[in-house]
C-alpha cells in the first residue's frame, strides 16, 4: 500500500518555560514520547489507513501448504496463517511529495504458531513518493514478488512455484520467501512504467556454511521493470500488468555460489467483461549460476538452479457489476537443471463466494507432487493433498483522508496534482 509517515511522537518540548511563569509542564499526554531528530508538535493529523485480512480455514488432509520442510505434519488442522493487520500513516510534504510509514504483522502457519511465534513483522517501512520517483526502505514485499500475484486462497500457497525463493531461508517460515528488508528506488514514466532498483537483505535463517546469520547485511540486489494498466479499469482493459526483473543473490561458495535470477510475467484479460471476467496470470522464475548438483537439505532446494512456471486462469462472475463468486485454477511446474528427480507440480483449485462486502466463504483443493530428490529433501512426502474450507474477511479503511493515491485515474488521465 505504501502510505504513511511517522506520526507525531514527540510533544511540546518547546514552549516550556515562558518568562519564569509557572507553566503546566509539557509532558505528552500518552506516555513518554520517542526520541526523533526534530520533535513535532502534535498538531497535524496524518492520514491513517488500516488494512486487515483474516483467513481462517479448516484444513482436511495434509495441509502444510508448500512449506518445504513439511511432510511430517499430516492430518487436519485449524489454519489462520496469512491473516494480517497493517497500519499506515501518510502525510503530504512541503513540496508536493508524500511521506508514509507502514507497519504490519502477519500470522504464521500452524507449525510456527504452535511454537508461539505467532506474528511475523511483514511490513515496516518508510516511503517517500514524488511524481516521478519513489524511495522506500524497510521490511516489505520482496521486489521480486511484485510482478504477479496469484488467486490462491493464501499468498503462500504454491510458494515454491510463485516466488523467487530466499536461498538463506531455513524453510521453516514460508514468509521469508515473500518479504525481505529492502532499500529501493522506483522511477516511472507517466506513472505507467516503473523501474525498480533495489538492494535487499533476504532473511537469513538457514544454517549456512558461514553459520546462521543474525545480521541484516545486504545479500541481494536487482532491478525490475513493470507496466501497469489504468487502475479501476481491470474489467475492460486487455493488458492489466506485466513486467520482468533480474536479481543477484550472493551465496557462499560452499552453498553453491552466487545465484542469478530472471523472472517475467503478467496479468492479461482473456475476456474483458463486467459480468463474466476471465483473466490469465503467468509467471516464470528462472535461476542459474549455482553449482549445486544435489540437495543436502531443504535450503539447497532454494539455491539450486531451477525454472518454475506458474499460470492461473480465473473466472469472476459479477451480476449487476458486483462480484458474486470466483473460481480459479492455479498450476505450477518446477524443475532443477542440475538435480535430477527433483521436478514438482502444484495445483490449486480455488472457489470464493462473496457473502458481503469483503467477506467471503472459501474452498480450495491443493495438490502437490514432488520427484524423489525433492521429496527426500522435504522429509519424504511425494504427494500432498489438502482441502481447505473457511472464511476470508478483508478490509481497507482510511481515516482522515488527506492523501490521494499517486496513481489515480485523475492523475494519470489529467494533469498530475501532488495530493
Amino acid at each position, binding site marked *: 500500500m505504501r502510505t504513511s509517515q511517522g506520526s507525531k511522537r514527540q510533544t511540546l518540548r518547546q514552549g516550556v518555560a515562558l518568562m519564569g511563569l509557572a507553566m503546566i509542564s509539557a509532558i505528552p499526554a500518552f506516555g513518554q514520547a520517542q526520541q526523533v531528530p526534530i520533535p513535532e508538535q502534535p498538531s497535524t493529523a496524518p492520514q491513517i489507513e488500516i488494512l486487515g485480512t483474516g483467513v481462517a480455514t479448516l484444513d482436511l488432509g495434509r495441509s502444510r501448504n508448500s512449506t518445504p520442510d513439511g511432510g511430517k505434519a499430516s492430518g487436519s488442522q485449524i489454519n489462520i496463517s496469512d491473516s494480517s493487520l497493517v497500519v499506515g500513516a501518510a502525510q503530504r510534504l512541503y513540496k508536493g511529495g508524500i511521506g508514509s510509514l507502514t507497519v504490519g504483522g502477519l500470522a504464521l502457519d500452524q507449525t510456527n504458531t504452535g511454537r508461539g511465534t505467532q506474528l511475523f513483522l511483514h511490513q515496516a517501512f518508510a516511503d517517500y513518493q514524488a511524481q516521478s520517483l519513489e524511495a522506500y526502505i524497510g521490511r516489505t514485499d520482496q521486489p521480486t514478488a511484485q510482478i504477479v500475484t496469484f488467486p490462491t486462497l493464501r499468498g503462500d500457497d504454491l510458494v515454491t512455484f510463485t516466488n523467487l525463493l530466499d536461498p538463506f531461508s531455513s524453510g521453516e517460515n514460508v514468509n521469508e520467501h515473500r518479504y525481505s528488508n529492502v532499500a529501493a528506488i522506483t522511477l516511472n514514466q507517466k506513472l505507467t512504467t516503473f523501474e525498480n532498483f533495489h538492494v535487499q537483505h533476504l532473511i537469513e535463517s538457514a544454517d549456512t556454511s558461514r553459520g546462521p546469520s543474525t545480521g541484516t547485511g545486504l545479500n541481494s540486489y536487482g532491478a525490475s521493470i513493470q507496466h501497469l494498466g489504468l*487502475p*479501476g479499469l481491470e*474489467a475492460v482493459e486487455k493488458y492489466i500488468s506485466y513486467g520482468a526483473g533480474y536479481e543477484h543473490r550472493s551465496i557462499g561458495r560452499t552453498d553453491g555460489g552466487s545465484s542469478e535470477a530472471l523472472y517475467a510475467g503478467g496479468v492479461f484479460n482473456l475476456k474483458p*467483461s*463486467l459480468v463474466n471476467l476471465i483473466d490469465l496470470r503467468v509467471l516464470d522464475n528462472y535461476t542459474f549460476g549455482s553449482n549445486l548438483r544435489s540437495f543436502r537439505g531443504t535450503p539447497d532446494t532454494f539455491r539450486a538452479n531451477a525454472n518454475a512456471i506458474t499460470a492461473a486462469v480465473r473466472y469472476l462472475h459479477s451480476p449487476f457489476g458486483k462480484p458474486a463468486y470466483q473460481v480459479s485454477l492455479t498450476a505450477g511446474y518446477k524443475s532443477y537443471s542440475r538435480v535430477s528427480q527433483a521436478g514438482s507440480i502444484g495445483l490449486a483449485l480455488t472457489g470464493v463466494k462473496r457473502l458481503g462486502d469483503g467477506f467471503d466463504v472459501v474452498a480450495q483443493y491443493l495438490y502437490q507432487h514432488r520427484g524423489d530428490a525433492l521429496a527426500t529433501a522435504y522429509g519424504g512426502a511425494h504427494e500432498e493433498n489438502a482441502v481447505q474450507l473457511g472464511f476470508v474477511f478483508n478490509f481497507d479503511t482510511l481515516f482522515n483522508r488527506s492523501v490521494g*493515491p499517486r496513481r*489515480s*485515474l*485523475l492523475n494519470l488521465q489529467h494533469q498530475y496534482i501532488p*495530493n
Partner: protein
Amino acid sequence: MKPLRKKDKPQDVSRRQFMTGVAGAAGAGLLLGQAALPAWADGGSAPMDSPATPWLASFDADGTAPEYNPREMPKAGEVIHKFEMEVTIGIHEIVPGIKAHMFLFNGSYPGPTIRVQENEWVQIDLKNKSPENHTIHWHGMMLQNEMDGVPFGTQWPVFTGQGYRYLFRAQPAGTHFYHCHVMTTLHQQAGLVGALIVEAKEDIVKKTFPYTRDYTLLLSEIDTNWVNESLNEMVGMGMTMNAMNNDMKLMGEMNGRMMGWFQDKEAFLKSIKDGYTPAYMTSMVGPNRVITPNFFMINGKSYPMTDPLLIKKGENIRVRMIGGGMQPHYFHLHGHDFWHVCQDGAPLASPVRMNTIPIFPGTTSDIVIQGTNPGSWHFHDHSDLSTTNNGIHPGGMMTMLMYEDAEKYGVTFKDVIQTNS
C-alpha cells in the same frame, strides 16, 4: 423583516403587470379575477383562483406565474443568445498550493456568467468532453419541463462525447444560477455551477439606487479529499461505461441496474429478488466518508485570493450573492448597513436594512451597498468555520469592501493580507 412602510412600495405595479398591461391588484382584499393570469395559463382544467387576501396592496397573488408560456418556441425576430458550454476535467487552484481536479464549464470554475435581458431567448449547447454524465439545471428559470436539466426526470443525462441543446426564454428577471443536476452533491461541488443574471427591463433596484458597478459573488464549499476520491471513482465508472459503448460484446452487458437505474419501483423490487444489492444495503454504518468541506470560496477562490469589492464615496454598488454550495453562509459587512433588495431574483416588497445577511444553499440575495464610510472593510461569512483554509483562520469566504478614494478622506491604513493567525 421590517413591516412595510408606506413610502416603500416598489411593487405597486408588478413586473408582470407592467409588461402585460393587465391592471388590478389595486387594493388590499381585492379578489383578482382570472384576467390577472396570462392568457396561456388559463386554458387548462383547474383555473388558479386568486385568493382573497388581507395582505398589503403591493402584494400580487398571481405574481409567481411565468409571464410567457414556457412551452412556446421562439418567434421570428426574437433575440436568441447562443452559448456553448463544454464540460471537461481540469485543474482549479483555490489558493496557492491547493489545486483540485474539478469539472469545469468552458475551462473555468465557477462556470462563465451568463447575462441576458429578461424575456430574451437563451440557447446553450452543452458538450460533454468528460468521462462522466452531466446536465444543466437552470435554477430559478420558468422554462419548459424538458429544459429543466434533471437527469431521468426531464431528460437523459448527457453521456461522454454527446451534447444537449437547452433553449428557454429568460424569465423571470433577477439573479439566478445554473448547475449540473447529475449526482448534484458531487458534480456541483466538483465545479459545475455558475451565475445566470437576467436583467430586468425596468430595474427597480437601479431606479432606486442608481449604480454602475454590479458584482456577483458565488459562494461554495468543497471537501477536496472527498471530491478527489469520488471523482476518481466516477471517472473509473465513466471510462468503463465508455469502453462498453465501444465494444459490441461488452455493450450486451450494459445494464441500468449496474448503475442503480430502474424503470419504476416494481422493476427495482424485482431486481432485488433477482439478487441485486442496492448500494445503501452493503454496510449498515455506511461508507467511511463524511463530506467535510475544507475550503470555502467566493467565485472559486478562498481568502486571500478573493477579489475585493471596489467602491467610491457616494457610489452605490449592487452585489448579487448566490448560495452555490451546500452550506448556509451569513455575510457580514463591517462599518456599514446595506439594503437587501432582491431575494431569489425577485425584488422585495421593500428594501430591508441589515448588516448580516444569510445566504442559504440554492438561494440568491441582491444587496446594495452605499459608499458612506471610506476605508477598507471586511465582508465575510460570520459563521467562522467558513473563514478558514483547511482549518486555518483566516481564509475562506472573506473579501474586502475597498474604497478606491479612501486616502482622500484621510484613511491611510493599508489592508494587510494574513494567512495565519
